[in-house]
């Protein structure tokens, strides 16, 4: 009944896009509509979170086709949380893009809206082929956003991104073909648990998961990420970081929980990949030399933290991983907005050329260090709660080595954040922080408005750290929904 609202997060941004493309371009209209639609989706997502908080699953057979033929949309607590946090990120990143006037191209806001529509669709669909379509809907505008208003470097980055994504999509398509050939369905509900009983289905699902791991940039298929994201527009990088790779993570969670039914035979493999990603990401971040590329490379490591959820596959482990995912995307987007402010103001994110920002951009320093500490897991911020819960879950599952690596990698993350802080914020003024004026060089000041989105996104690090309880309860509901997908399967299954 109430499931009839489920396609709205997909349809509304697409309709707004059509309107924006048809109407003559006015930046104010474009910005208002983009933010307004995203705010509407955020409200809807919040409502979905409330509706599914008791563990129920909303579903909708699109087009009133009989069950089994219709394409199913479904929302449980996990998808509802993901939709809400995505809408929040879209609002934050787009307002940042608008304050630094990155949206000079008339298609900027429409493309971002289509991107968000694809992401919402991927979170809400319960059909593997539909998921492929939504991922393509998400990727097609992202290909354009990567190269938008860029030089040769950005085109090179766009080529890497496009080819890797296309390869992953092709592999995903083959996976769908194998699954359909074996089972005759691509509905997640009908497929539930089939990979546990049939080795062949498990292999076909593995093909899907490899494709998704590529999109999620998990080690060893991560190397495209640090080549692409540092080259894009600053706001685009912030937007992508929270949206694109997280869809891959979401699909891995969902497919592993429903299709494989959390098969413990593969837990060791998933956990190994998670741990290796953690270590490689943290070490790789230390080797980078610019503001944004450090943050981007560390993303690989944080994706590893999230993958611990399916690796442990306990209520606490999954809840911790989902909590980690939700708080992480907000903190990372805040940090990338800070990186974007620096790049926008000084024209470079090169740490060697920056310095002394703390004395002239105090607000920026605060906006950076709070989510930065959260990322490293310093109490009382949200990252601390997330890491602590992950460590508890690892101990509970008897994975002591994993638990100790979580601590070690947290320290390495602190080191990476400290590297940015030491070189960009402390010390003497860097050469890039001076601008040539007619009456001699003056210190370029950071404008306040672009920092506001970073502050707003970063405030969640404090909020979700000090008052973590409500979200922890919600993630536990989501984790139970993954652990026992019975309600989800009953809602989306055609039988």
């Amino acid at each position, binding site marked *: 009944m109430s499931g009839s609202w489920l396609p709205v997060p997909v349809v509304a941004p697409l309709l707004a896009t059509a309107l924006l493309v048809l109407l003559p371009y006015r930046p104010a209209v474009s910005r208002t509509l983009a933010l307004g639609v995203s705010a509407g989706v955020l409200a809807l997502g919040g409502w979905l979170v409330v509706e599914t908080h008791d563990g129920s699953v909303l579903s909708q057979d699109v087009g009133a086709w009989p069950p089994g033929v219709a394409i199913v949309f479904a929302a449980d607590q996990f998808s509802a949380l993901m939709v809400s946090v995505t809408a929040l990120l879209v609002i934050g990143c787009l307002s940042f893009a608008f304050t630094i006037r990155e949206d000079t191209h008339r298609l900027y806001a429409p493309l971002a809206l289509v991107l968000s529509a694809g992401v919402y669709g991927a979170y809400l669909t319960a059909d593997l082929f539909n998921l492929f*379509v939504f991922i393509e809907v998400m990727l097609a505008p992202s290909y354009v956003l990567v190269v938008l208003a860029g030089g040769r470097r950005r*085109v090179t980055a766009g080529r890497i991104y*496009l080819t890797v994504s296309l390869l992953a999509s092709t592999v995903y*398509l083959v996976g769908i*073909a194998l699954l*359909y*050939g074996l089972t005759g369905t691509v509905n997640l509900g009908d497929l539930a648990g089939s990979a546990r009983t049939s080795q062949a289905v498990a292999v076909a699902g593995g093909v899907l998961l490899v494709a998704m791991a590529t999109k999620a940039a998990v080690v060893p298929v991560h190397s495209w990420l640090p080549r692409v994201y540092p080259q894009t527009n600053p706001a685009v990088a912030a937007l992508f970081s929270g949206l694109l790779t997280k869809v891959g993570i979401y699909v891995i969670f969902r497919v592993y929980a429903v299709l494989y039914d959390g098969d413990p035979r593969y837990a060791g493999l998933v956990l190994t990949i998670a741990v290796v990603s953690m270590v490689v990401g943290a070490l790789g971040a230390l080797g980078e030399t610019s503001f944004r590329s450090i943050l981007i490379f560390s993303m690989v490591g944080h994706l590893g933290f999230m993958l611990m959820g399916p690796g442990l596959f306990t209520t606490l482990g999954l809840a911790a991983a989902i909590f980690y995912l939700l708080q992480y995307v907000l903190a990372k987007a805040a940090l990338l907005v800070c990186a974007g402010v620096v790049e926008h103001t000084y024209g470079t994110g090169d740490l060697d050329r920056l310095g002394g920002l703390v004395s002239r951009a105090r607000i920026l320093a605060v906006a950076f260090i709070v989510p930065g500490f959260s990322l490293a897991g310093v109490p009382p911020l949200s990252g601390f709660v997330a890491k602590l819960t992950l460590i508890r879950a690892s101990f509970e599952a008897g994975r002591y080595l994993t638990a100790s690596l979580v601590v070690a990698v947290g320290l390495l993350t602190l080191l990476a954040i400290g590297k940015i802080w030491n070189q960009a914020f402390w010390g003497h003024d860097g050469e890039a922080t001076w601008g040539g004026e007619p009456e001699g060089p003056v210190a370029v000041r950071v404008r306040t408005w672009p920092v506001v989105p970073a502050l707003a996104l970063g405030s969640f690090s404090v909020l979700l750290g000090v008052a973590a309880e409500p979200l922890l309860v919600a993630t536990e509901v989501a984790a139970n929904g993954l652990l026992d997908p019975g309600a989800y399967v009953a809602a989306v299954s055609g039988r």
Partner: protein
Amino acid sequence: MTAAIIAGVLVAAGVYLLLQRGLVRVTIGFVLLGHAANVVLVASGGMAWRQAPLVGDGDTAQMADPLPQAFVLTAIVITFGITVYLLALARAGGDDDPEPEPPPEPEPEPEPELGLDTDPEPDPSEPPAGTSGPQPVPGHRKTPEERG
């Protein structure tokens, strides 16, 4: 069996082309890989024992499965659009060398015997200032051959 062989040949050719340097070849490689995926999708509907879907002509249970065909149609449309964009990127970027920035000072002229090491059949879409030849001049976008 036929579908398996076709898919295998297409994947082999596609992977070979993906490993080439020029983006145009990579694009063609993706076209072949996409075809392979489509063949596998069509085959997943059960090619061997299905009949043509003609109404009033045989058992409906034996008719070709329409769902994989719908999948393939969708996939073809998506892949086609992205392929066109990939070709546009190949045109926009010119040189395929992943080095992001050409060096500021021009390199000394290479020895004549080094020139023999270059690719014997350069990709026509690439500027002749190839990957192992002299470095491209900063700001160099198009060669006369490319414009014409």
